[in-house]
């Protein structure tokens, strides 16, 4: 049994806009997907010197709050709308526990407006979808892939997210099947 993927929406993006993400997670991981509201205490992970939020702190909160109940095979993916960082890096789009239970994705840098471009809801939703599939992939133990169209390819700029697809390449999908049946 592969468990359920819980999408915890603390991003302010309305539920309707996350439909494609939920469907895609289901399609890629063949797992049940549930959408829940999420209100992490972000003040606890705010770093005033950087005006950003520590993503590992968000993950820790998710674990503390939620791992007490639920199937241990379940995965939790939190969506937030604040700018995330880990200490050595200037920012991250998200963070996942490799072969763990939790992942977090920030919608903050996924909006076109931030780059001085006209808003584009479709592109914004696509980016959320890809980043969620990518981070959940890490929680199942998948690492980055070199295939230019694979969702597990690493993206350090939003433009790179746009270039890749939202599905796994055959090699990653094969690995995923192996990892999920362990």
């Amino acid at each position, binding site marked *: 049994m592969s468990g359920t993927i819980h999408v915890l929406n603390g991003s302010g993006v309305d539920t309707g806009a996350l439909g494609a993400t939920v469907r895609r997670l289901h399609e890629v991981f063949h797992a049940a997907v549930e959408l829940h509201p999420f209100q992490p205490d972000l003040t606890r992970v705010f770093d005033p010197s950087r005006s950003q939020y520590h993503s590992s702190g968000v993950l820790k909160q998710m674990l503390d709050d939620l791992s007490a109940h639920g199937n241990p095979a379940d995965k939790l993916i939190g969506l937030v709308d604040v700018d995330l960082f880990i200490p*050595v890096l200037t920012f991250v789009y998200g963070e996942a526990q490799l072969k763990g239970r939790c992942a977090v994705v920030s919608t903050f840098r996924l909006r076109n407006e931030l*780059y001085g471009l006209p808003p584009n809801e479709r592109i914004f939703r696509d980016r959320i979808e890809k980043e969620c599939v990518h981070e959940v992939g890490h929680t199942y133990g998948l690492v980055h892939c070199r295939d230019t169209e694979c969702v597990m390819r690493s993206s350090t700029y*939003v*433009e790179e997210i746009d270039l890749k697809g939202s599905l796994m390449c055959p090699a990653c999908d094969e690995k995923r099947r192996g990892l999920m049946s362990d």
Partner: protein
Amino acid sequence: MTNTPSILVVDDEKVVRDSLTKWFLQDGYDVESADSGAEALKRLQVRKRDLILLDIKMPGMDGMELQQRVKEIDSGATIIFITAHATIDSAVQALKQGAFDYVTKPVDPDYLSHVVANALRQRTLAIENERMRDSITSASRAEEIVGESPQMKKLFELIDTVAKTDTTVMIRGESGTGKELVARAIHANSNRRFFPVVPVNCGGLAEGLLESELFGHERGAFTGAHYRRKGKLELADGGTLFLDEVGNISAKTQMDLLRVLETKQFTRVGGNDVLRTDFRVVCATNSDLEQAVKQGTFREDLYYRLNVFSIVLPPLRERRSDIPLLANYFVKKYALQMNKAVTGLAPDAMEQVVQYSWPGNVRELENAIERAMVLGTPPMLKASDLPFQMTNERGRIRTGTLADIERAYVTEVLERNRWNISRSAEELDIDRVTLYHKIDKYGLKKPS
């Protein structure tokens, strides 16, 4: 994968060690960390690493001293220093003593990936190549270029030949003939296939936006640009840049583009850094560039730079024998996507599809089939499921026996080509002898 590059992270700060270790693990590297110089040396004595990241400032043995000791164990060790802003001077000193590079905390993730990739490439080019070969199983995925007509067979040969070179390619053809698919096929069969193919639609964007799209921009380059944007030229590094509707580029951008193609260098909008990039150009157009050059709206020098090897895609009406193949291909595709047990087209529907002139080419055919798949019911699509446009004007329905239809159609093509036998045969996709047979069979006569 035994060839996974190995990395050792040495830092006294746990949070730095942990987050870097995690970052590299997710990137697929074999990574371990050490919290002091002494610990690092112990680990290196057991096993050498491809790359070592050292914090320059640590209690006890600092990074500089550790660098000397590491070199005693492994003289070829590749070392990258991690510094805070305050210690950049010592980092520069470290470079003089043979470090590969340094990064300043907090580091831009893109920069870190590049520095690490460059360091590894320099050290073990072979291993890196191996890794890339390992992780990509099917480089040239079957794309949606469908056809068995002589024109298409020739096209496949051309793609194959040109893919193996690094030549600039210009793809000509009416809209909807699948120019982007051809560009992707060239890329997928080239040595650049492990890097992205980056499409840019030059027709759809205002001048300023196209500039930012191509060259990227720096933070604050214009109002609202809160973050740096990576342009398509940078994204295409190592891969293929596909310039679609290249005939629509403004005069200024034509000049900028020409400069990049000549020098392989550019700067981001609002930036000063000169960036190097290495990509192959494949471009496409359905406009008459030669005419545009004559009229002075398209630069002649850019034209010659782009038009090195040209591939012309035939319109669908000139390869009718491929239509049934394509129609069935799209039926299969949408049956799968819509989960509908449709297996093909009923004879009357197929006849209409083959007869229609398809001014919008393969794309129009695909749209028509997709629409019919929504309306139709299994197991076969009927003529009435097809979009109504087919029943008027150019694609008027012909009724009667197959022989009647063939007779009418051959007559139409002959008339259109003023009874030029070679050209008509080509359009009908049959040889001249067969055409003479048909003229004979139906008793057709050239009007005098």
